[in-house]
């Protein structure tokens, strides 16, 4: 195997482990930390079903953001849902037998890349142009956008400009999944794309990308509004009663 193939194999194993263990540890921490008081932002649903609906509206439509700021909402929503389509489209590189629906969304997933870039550029423009958003931005906030745009552009290079040997790429990832490493084609666009993706996986658990699991654990959004009906008591608070 070539040096590049070995390096990328190692990189992707490492990245996958960091991502899975890192995000898993974070989720575990969120789940086990108690929320001692009922603090849903009201008006809030009074049933669990209602909370599931509220969360659905937040995650799928970014409802609060919609109420809050139409520009961030439109760019943010375009970016995230393009990203989702793009990710779903990528499933086929990890499957021997590609699911039908994955095949069917290929054309959409392909052009969703443009949506991703437009959304990200819009968000970046706000970050630079709006004084309030500029003030709260750290270098990492800009770099995160650069990273995602880099992933998007290098991916689009391969889709729309100079195709890579996609059959070999697929063989590479299937090989990794079966623990029998394969050669990786070495055209620059592919290597850049994959390197950035590995970087994204590695920074995920130590960056603001934790908003993705975090949103599900936000007590102001995931609590049922029933404090009078049902006594809510955290374990450490129960200790105080003794």
């Amino acid at each position, binding site marked *: 195997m070539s040096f590049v193939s070995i390096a990328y194999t190692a990189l992707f194993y490492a990245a996958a482990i960091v991502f899975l263990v890192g995000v898993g540890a974070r989720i575990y921490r969120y789940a086990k930390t108690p929320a001692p008081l009922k603090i849903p*932002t009201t008006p809030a649903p009074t049933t669990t079903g209602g909370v599931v609906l509220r969360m659905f509206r937040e995650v799928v439509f*970014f409802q609060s*953001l919609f109420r809050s700021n139409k520009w961030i909402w439109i760019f943010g929503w375009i970016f995230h849902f393009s990203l989702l389509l793009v990710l779903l489209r990528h499933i086929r590189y990890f499957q021997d037998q590609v699911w039908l629906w994955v095949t069917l969304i290929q054309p959409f997933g392909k052009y969703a890349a443009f949506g991703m870039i437009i959304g990200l550029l819009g968000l970046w423009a706000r970050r630079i142009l709006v004084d309030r958003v500029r003030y*709260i931005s*750290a*270098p990492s906030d800009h770099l995160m956008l650069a990273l995602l745009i880099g992933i998007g552009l290098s991916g689009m290079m391969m889709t729309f400009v100079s195709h890579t040997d996609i059959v070999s790429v697929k063989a590479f990832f299937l090989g990794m999944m079966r623990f029998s490493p394969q050669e990786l084609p070495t055209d620059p666009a592919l290597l850049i794309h994959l390197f950035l993706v590995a970087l994204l996986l590695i920074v995920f658990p130590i960056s603001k990308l934790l908003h993705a699991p975090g949103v599900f654990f936000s007590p102001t959004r995931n609590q049922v509004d029933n404090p009078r009906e049902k006594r809510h008591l955290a374990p450490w608070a129960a200790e105080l009663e003794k």
Partner: protein
Amino acid sequence: MADFDVPKFREIPIIPKLQEGTMEHSKPYVAKADFQQPLGYPGELLDNWKEVAIDKMGELLGKYRSFQVFLDACVKCGACTDKCHYYLGTTDPKNMPVGRQDLLRKVYRRYFTFAGKYFPKLVGAQDLTEEVLDDWYSYFHQCSQCRRCSVFCPYGIDTAEISMAAREIMDAVGKGQKYCNEIIGKVFKVGNNLGLPQPALEDTLEGIEEDVEEETGVKVRYPLDEKGAEVLLVTPSADFFAEPHVDGLIGYGKVFHEAGISWTLSSHASEAANFGMFIGSYENMKRVSMRIREAALDLGVKRIIFGECGHAWRVAYSFLNTLAGPFDFLDPNYPVPQHICEFTHDLIKQGKLNLDKSRNDDMTLTYHDSCNVARASRMGDTPGGQFTIPRDIIKASCNNFYDMSADTVYDSTYCCGGGGGLLTDDLMELRVKGALPRMEALKKVVDEHGVTHMAAICAICKSQFAKVMPYYGFTLDQIVSVHQLVSNALILTGQKSDDDEDEGDED
């Protein structure tokens, strides 16, 4: 009138350009040892305060999921940046909700995250220094914990939770705020925020009984510490004497009278407010709450009802069952606790109150949704009852009512500017500036609909508005209690005929 510039009404409410440091000087008095120690905090700044602060932060991260998740999840999208009344009124970027959170987040990142430990510059992480602590003291006492930011954040990040944690950390290192800590001490010692002892309460209530009898000819009772009463009423101590609060208390008494339900106040729990929440202290909040349980048990009541108070209702509605429950010794047919508005609303629905709306015809009203009622509690059975129930009561008591603009009411309501432990004279500049968005919205309905009065159901809102409205060209008596309106309109069974007292009724 003031040694600072009162903000001007904006012609078009555009979002102001930020100006760094405009409110850096705003700091409340630091609590002396006498006020710190009774709450279990060190009397002055500890020598090893940095370690203690970091340890405390670590402890809170393990105790409060909100704190942990909110510190991690923010993506700096900027959606909250224009949502805080203190930012709009002061243009200080550290008063943008995310700007405020970042004061603490940068320290969290430095000591608790991989990126902050090894790449601090990259992620804006910073060591805990004296300047940072100063900033904390300044800006975490410029948050009224109103939760407006949490409504508009895509993850519901509630800066109030961060402020509470920050204040708890500052208390733990010996840098507490005088106003809150002194008051909590008074509650433990005397029973209420104002330090009114039992005999003073008794006196006041007797005075009220006499006044009401003189005005209406009906003997309405305002009982204190009466064992065996059906209802324990817990109300903010401002209701005992300050205007317009006391008119609300008069109203509650009249409503109980008409309902034919026996009730009592308690000198042991003569305070609905719970400043333990403002300083983020579960233990102190619990201790303050336990007075209410003790009073209910001692007096043998069957129900607990809270008077008009915003954050008190949050603690009552959302936390009381947790902090001082279970309340299985009370009548299970009623929610514990109930809000006086829920109680009055039920009576109105049953047609038990004879309300003559025309008796409030000298006023045209609007209603200020108090932040903690609006975004941290509920009334009635359905979500949003906290908006409709008080309005229903007002509309049943008055002919003229207009709401302020939609983006300033319901769960988008603006805080009065004095909540969250900031209702103190040493923060007057902040209070005046923070009131700007509400004052603008009020001005609009005054100009468009001839509104003369604004009603509220919170003791802090009422005190705050009475104080700051004059800065904006209003008068201090333009803020009224909701139960004051009920009191005006309510014709008691057997009340003297109207003509006898019409002249004296002018506002």
